[in-house]
């Protein structure tokens, strides 16, 4: 039942055609433009705002339909906030999130509700993201029923199919989440997200709470499902090896900014930004003979409430120049499709693209 044909004819095709603009057929399913999400810091008796935590600070990227974008970075760098802002679980401060040409943050409540089935999220912790009071069948079916995606009489079979495709058995329907292991719970979370036939899924660290052997099962499942249902993923993780395995494009984040962004092969073969280099060299390699030329970063991430001036990375950067302390580097295309924001590459892009010269000489 849950196959391509069924998807095609029951999916909100007709509804969408009316609401979506012409560029529905564009290659990019998601476009994030200069997105900023700040959280206010309140203080004092009257709780007035004394500052902002700049969780996401001027981030732009695009994701092609049917591909996976990986988002890596240390904890507190704003990966999760991006994911949540895309779904409008957080309100943005400025910028745009265009899903299929529609700005999600401009939709009314009713329109947003209609949009919800198309974008889904898989949360990090399968232990706290499932309601302990609902049986698994109900957890998965609830949203399907609410959005009236499937006729009532077919709902039962439909849920069985979804569960089967996520590696769950029909008799699991009557059980409660506490009866399952971590890996099984993550399967339930995936089934819950996929039951709505989404086009785009934000995977927020879906495997970091799981054991190694179970991680592999879940990653394989995600890849299979992507092929089967032509899904697009935004895969958020701090585990670089997992991100490398699953993604097509990768964005490296530091303190609310994407410092490097590009194709997986380009980024791993030729990391440009000093932070990316340090991050990659810090991955422990499961090979005792591997050569160790590790770049060890001094100190820890500065507070996002009060980020350093100029380039945010300059406090920990070993290539730091005078310029880095005052001038904010702009994002530049070094190779086709490979962007980075670092003053080290000012000259590189100048040689290649004379046009940009004026904007770079700040």
């Amino acid at each position: 039942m849950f196959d391509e044909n069924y998807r095609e004819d029951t999916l909100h095709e007709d509804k969408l055609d009316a609401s979506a603009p012409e560029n529905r057929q564009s290659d990019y399913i998601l476009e994030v433009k200069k997105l900023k999400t700040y959280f206010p810091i309140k203080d004092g008796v009257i709780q007035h705002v004394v500052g902002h935590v700049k969780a996401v600070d001027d981030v732009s990227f695009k994701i092609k339909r049917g591909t996976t974008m990986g988002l890596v970075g240390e904890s507190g760098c704003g990966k999760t906030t991006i994911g949540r802002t895309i779904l409008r679980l957080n309100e943005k401060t400025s910028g745009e999130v265009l899903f299929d040409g529609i700005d999600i943050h401009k939709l009314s409540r009713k329109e947003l509700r209609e949009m919800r089935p198309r974008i889904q999220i898989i949360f990090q912790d399968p232990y706290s993201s499932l309601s302990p009071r609902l049986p698994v069948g109900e957890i998965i079916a609830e949203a399907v029923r609410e959005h009236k995606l499937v006729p009532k009489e077919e709902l039962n079979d439909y849920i069985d199919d979804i569960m089967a495709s996520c590696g769950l058995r029909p008799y699991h329907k009557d059980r409660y989440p506490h009866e399952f292991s971590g890996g099984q719970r993550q399967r339930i979370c995936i089934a819950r997200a996929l039951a709505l036939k989404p086009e785009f899924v934000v995977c927020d660290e879906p495997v970091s709470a799981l054991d190694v052997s179970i991680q592999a099962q879940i990653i394989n499942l995600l890849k299979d499902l992507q092929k089967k249902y032509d899904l697009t993923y935004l895969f958020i993780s701090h585990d670089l090896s997992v991100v490398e395995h699953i993604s097509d494009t990768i964005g490296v984040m530091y303190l609310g900014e994407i410092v490097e962004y590009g194709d997986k092969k380009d980024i791993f073969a030729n990391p440009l930004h000093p932070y990316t280099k340090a991050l990659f060299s810090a991955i422990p390699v499961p090979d005792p003979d591997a050569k160790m030329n590790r770049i060890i970063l001094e100190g820890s991430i500065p507070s996002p409430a009060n980020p350093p001036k100029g380039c945010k990375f300059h406090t920990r950067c070993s290539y730091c120049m005078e310029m880095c302390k005052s001038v904010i580097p702009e994002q530049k295309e070094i190779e086709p499709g490979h962007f980075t924001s670092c003053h080290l590459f000012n000259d590189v892009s100048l040689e290649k693209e004379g046009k940009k010269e004026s904007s770079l000489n700040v």
Partner: protein
Amino acid sequence: MPLTRNQEDKQNSKFADKVTAVIKEKMSQKKIKSANYLTAKQSRAISRDNRKSMRAYEKRNNRKNVPESEYETTMRDPGNVVEFDDLHTYFFTDTGTVKAVDGVTFDIPVGKTVGVVGESGCGKSVTCLSLMQIVQRPQGQIVSGAIRLNLGDKAVDIAKMPIEKMQTVRGNKMAMIFQEPMTSLNPVFRIGPQIDEVIALHNPEMTKEQVKARTLEMLETVSIANGEGVYRMYQHELSGGMRQRVMISMALACSPSLIIADEPTTALDVTIQAQILDLLRNLKNKINSSIMLITHDLGVIAEMADYVVVMYAGRVVEKGTVGEVFKNPSHPYTIGLMASKPAVNKAVERLYSIPGNVPNPIDMPNYCYFRDRCEKCLEKCSGVYPGEKRLSPTHFVSCYLYEDLQEEK
């Protein structure tokens, strides 16, 4: 046409058959369901047995004035700091006995790092908790086996050591770094006094000033620049990496001969992890101690350890030097574990995943625990649990696949 009596009987019996079939089916379903279900009678019996055995073990542990001769032993090899010898640690729970550690044997040589890997629930942590004798009592008990600790001039068996005597060893001869620096520091005390306490307890002859000087020195060793400042801070004022540094300085305060690091970097970011691992490695060489490193990250093991012990469901399935285990993984579980982790710059279309889940730790079968998930399963595997086979002088594996190999040699 009315039915004859015979026909009626036949129909009735048919109906009866059907009913019994349905009942039987229901019963069998019920039986399947009751795998995790205990009757009140069973539950009472378990509790009774637990109370009985726990009382016996507690009595043994809490004795006073135990003569030293009772727990003094000799090391099998004086070059080892710790020898685990067929250690069994069980937990007596209300649903049955959990054999968390079930016959673990391995050595930690002086000045080396031994890495213990395995999935969660395989008994890694319980092994090192047994070594410190801080298993949750009275449910958790070291049931049998020996843990020999080398104290230099003599050796003691920790499994037999009374609790009051343990305090002279804990923190002094061996120290532990816990997984969560967040929860293992006391939030109501400042950092300094927490480190002072360890030093003052084990060195009663030192004055307060000396203790403080030593604490500041320790903070400096773990590359905390602002020692005086951190001394007066609370744990919430420090970042994760800094907290873990404080934990390490606390563990190293008495220059122990063994540092037990239970997932020291799991809660940290990659770049901070690199800092901490680097620090641990340098400090180990500085004070010439051994490290027992517990982790589930094979990358960390490959980088840090000299010897590797792979555990599965409370047993050691494979052990050897790092080179041997990583170059020539022999147990199907080790092979699976290595293949299931995606490695950077090693693209594979599909990750290998070990089928199934870790078995329920209650009522473990007699046969090889990995049998139901193993792809290379042999007929023999249904027999008793395989013994340890020697592949090289330092490489051991518990698997029937290698039994013939031994005979050929």
